[in-house]
């Protein structure tokens, strides 16, 4: 009499575990849609220093530009969303001139980046990262990605994908409590 009862209990236990697993799999986000926060957020910004793609300009060093917010934008000239976001960056840089510095990091070489800016406008520092060292330090996966850095050098936020003027305004308002 007891043997079937034990078997029934074991089967019920396995059934419960299976049911919990099914619920977890149904409710959880698909792995492809999950977006993780950057481990850099809340920490001091990694080093960002180097020659600019326009060699008539002096070398850039993020550490030397304290006192203002800085938007660090990683882009490549072959990347379509980078082309789409560029006019938004130009507008943001113009309207927030003096309050927020913009710096771009060119991920595919100085010459294409120079041509990109000549064609599309934008008058801010563009650092050459042809060897990928800066992108790796900043944990960049694929362009475009942007980071908002506080005046004290802390990384406040990471934006994956293209930015918009409105999105940047909202982000700035959120971090400044405005």
């Amino acid at each position, binding site marked *: 009499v*007891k*043997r079937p009862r*034990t078997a029934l209990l*074991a089967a019920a236990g396995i059934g419960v575990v299976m049911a919990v697993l099914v619920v977890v799999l149904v409710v959880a986000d698909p*792995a492809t849609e999950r977006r*993780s926060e*950057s*481990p*850099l957020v809340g*920490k001091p910004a*990694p080093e960002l220093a180097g020659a600019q793609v326009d060699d008539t300009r002096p070398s850039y060093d993020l550490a030397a530009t304290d006192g203002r917010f800085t938007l660090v934008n990683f882009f490549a000239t072959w990347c379509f969303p980078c082309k789409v976001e560029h006019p938004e960056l130009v507008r943001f840089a113009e309207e927030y001139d003096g309050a927020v510095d913009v710096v771009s990091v060119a*991920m595919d070489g100085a010459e294409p980046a120079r041509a990109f800016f000549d064609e599309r406008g934008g008058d801010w520092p563009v650092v050459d990262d042809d*060897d*990928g*060292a800066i*992108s*790796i*330090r*900043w*944990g*960049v*996966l*694929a362009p475009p990605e942007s980071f908002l850095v506080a005046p004290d050098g802390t990384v406040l936020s990471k934006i994956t994908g293209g930015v918009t003027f409105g999105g940047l305004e909202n982000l700035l308002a959120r971090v400044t409590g405005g």
Partner: protein
Amino acid sequence: MRRLVWALLAVVVAGALWYGTTDRDERTASERADDIAADLRCPFCRSESVRDSQADVAQNMRAEIARRIADGESDDEIVDALVASYGETIVMTPSGSGTASLVWVLPVAALVGGLAALAFAFRRWRST
């Protein structure tokens, strides 16, 4: 003669202990870079290691590993630097501490629990 044998034995034991406990890394820089890259997951493609992936980010990570090896950094320092940028998820082998340690603890706990349940069930069946 016997003393000589003992002395020889002591030398052999001491030598074996020294050899066994000395940290010798005889790998070339390229082998070290390969080993480190094999232990890291490509953060963009996920299913491949940094060593095997052809994604841009994996290629850049391999170059960064080579640069850091040339700068004299240890394997742990290099992995720590990349984890600081990309997060713990790029490490192929889960950490033995924090929540990730559950990956190691849970299977063992399940095995022990299962064996205990089986032993309990067999004993009850035998007694009936």
